[in-house]
């Protein structure tokens, strides 16, 4: 406690130099938290969006289904059992039927995936309600990316050819009822959504589905003949991306920290050089060298505490502001789930970890030059003779 008190006295006594160091360190501190917060925010939003749009609280797949292998789609469908139907009616599951198809927008040819979705479902954010219509014809909704890729507008027609359960070709004009905007590329790219019963009729697969999306109300449990894919599985690539981004961020953090620590180190070296007499005096007054090293170490390390305070002073308002307005990234189509606007998320854990990181490293870097003190001869120190 004494050492800490002395440290702050000394630091504040040093004036400008201290504040320079503190400002750099606080900058590193705020930036580290900000960047990680940004990634956490992205992560949370990405997961939230993916869950809301695509995967719910996990999906049940037909055992044959493999989302990466379009060839499996042909065989991956099964009728909904009574139990499942009941869960669907309770809004705990929503079935999706998938069929491969070829679309001929503007005379070109393009492989697409037809997805049948219940217009009444509320589990996915896909605006399936737009498929509910009394008009004659087959209506579909597509995402913005798909619309751009196929140059289709609302109201446009497109010929789609597919094969039904038995492999019989069928083709018809499908009208785009609506175009939706979604942050989750797999929900958009190459996907055409039609009403579930329409696709069931088109493919001659009454009451069948390829996968079932669970809602928050789903209590868990197995469904016979369906394979449950949990969130970890479904979000694997996304998690990997985020953890990779964090890896990338760690370099930045290290460099920023090194920068700030460089300033502290430099200050320490000089203050030990300039304050030899003070060191001698401490010893003359009966402090052990170890105690003196301690004072200087704590003094250097205390930069980090001041930095945390200063950082908090401008960081907290900044973070609150950013949390309100978010950070807009435009709408990059990177094949990655990323919101147009990311709201950074600062967890207590993140803040504590960053604080610890900064404090511990600042203390270590302060200790290094302070070790020199223990080798000083007090008589020389008193004279200020050391070089």
């Amino acid at each position: 406690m004494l050492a800490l008190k002395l440290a702050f006295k000394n630091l504040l006594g040093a004036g400008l130099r201290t504040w320079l160091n503190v400002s750099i360190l606080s900058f590193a501190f705020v930036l580290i938290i900000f960047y990680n917060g940004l990634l956490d925010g992205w992560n949370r939003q990405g997961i939230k969006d993916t869950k809301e749009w695509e995967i719910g609280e996990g999906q049940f797949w037909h055992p044959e289904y493999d989302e990466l292998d379009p060839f499996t789609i042909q065989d991956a469908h099964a009728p909904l059992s009574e139990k499942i139907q009941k869960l669907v009616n309770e809004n705990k599951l929503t079935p999706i039927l998938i069929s491969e198809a070829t679309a001929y927008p503007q005379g070109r040819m393009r492989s697409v995936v037809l997805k049948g979705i219940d217009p009444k479902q509320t589990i996915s954010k896909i605006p399936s309600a737009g498929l509910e219509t009394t008009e004659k014809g087959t209506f579909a909704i597509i995402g913005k990316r798909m619309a751009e890729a196929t140059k289709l507008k609302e109201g446009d027609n497109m010929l789609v050819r597919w094969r039904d359960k038995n492999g019989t070709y069928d083709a018809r004009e499908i009208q785009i009822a609506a175009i939706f905007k979604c942050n989750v590329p797999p929900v958009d790219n190459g996907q055409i959504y039609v009403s579930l019963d329409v696709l069931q009729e088109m493919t001659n697969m009454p009451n069948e589905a390829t996968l079932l999306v669970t809602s928050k109300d789903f209590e868990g449990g197995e469904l016979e003949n369906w394979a449950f894919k949990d969130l970890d599985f479904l979000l694997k690539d996304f998690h990997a991306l985020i953890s990779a981004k964090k890896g990338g961020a760690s370099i930045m953090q290290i460099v920023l920290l090194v920068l700030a620590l460089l300033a502290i180190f430099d200050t320490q070296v000089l203050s030990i050089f300039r304050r030899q007499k003070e060191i001698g005096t401490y010893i003359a007054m009966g402090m052990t060298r170890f105690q003196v090293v301690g004072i200087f170490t704590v003094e250097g390390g205390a930069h980090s505490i001041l930095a945390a305070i200063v950082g908090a002073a401008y960081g907290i308002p900044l973070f609150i502001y950013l949390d309100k307005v978010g950070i807009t990234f435009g709408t990059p189509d990177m094949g990655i789930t990323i919101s147009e606007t990311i709201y950074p998320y600062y967890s207590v854990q993140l803040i504590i970890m960053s604080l610890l990181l900064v404090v511990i490293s600042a203390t270590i870097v302060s200790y290094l030059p302070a070790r020199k003190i223990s080798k000083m001869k007090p008589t020389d120190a008193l004279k200020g003779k050391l070089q």
Partner: protein
Amino acid sequence: MAIIEINNLVKKFPVGKGFFTALNDVNLTFGEGEFTGLVGPSGSGKTTLLNIIGSLDTPSEGSAVVLEKSIAELTHKQSAKLRNQHIGFIFQTYNLLPVYTVYENVEFALLLQNMNGTERKKAVMQALEWVGLTDKIKSKPNMLSGGECQRVAIARSMVKKPQIVLADEPTANLDSKNSHHILQTMEKLNEELKTTFIFATHDEKVMKYMKRIISLKDGQVDNDVQINHSETSNLKL
């Protein structure tokens, strides 16, 4: 009873490839309540002797026993404890801690002893009373004159009521009026508290106050005289 016993003390410093002998076969004894000056020209070994007595340095040969402790055999911790509890230092350049107030500078010595708050406050105020600086407790060293700084330094060294105070050229940076003031303060404390004062000085003004003067020359004791001028000093008080 002797509180400092120095026998055949030799101190050598490496210089280039050889040695410089700062102290050569010094034999001295100091008793309780002494008010002694070490005099001699620059380089005669005064500061070295003080440093050894203060356990800031160690003998090359011979022994220095301070308060029954052999300086040569003390660990860092023990010597720190010795200084902290029993020895006060006063320096030519005061060596006050610049970022602390007068009060804090004095208090510092007691903080190291873990003295409790009320006692500490009492002791600090008392020490500042001794040196007549109770009105400046909130000042920082850079707001004080040289004499005032040195008085803070005296208060700092005395606040823990040490048995020995070692003063290295305490008046070298002071004008004559301030020098006298300082010396009178120390003389008074010497008498009241029976603290042993050892000065290293070549200041004539200081010598006038000394009760014993030891002359050093080339690291050896040249002369060691007891002086009785109590009348004059009493007059000056």
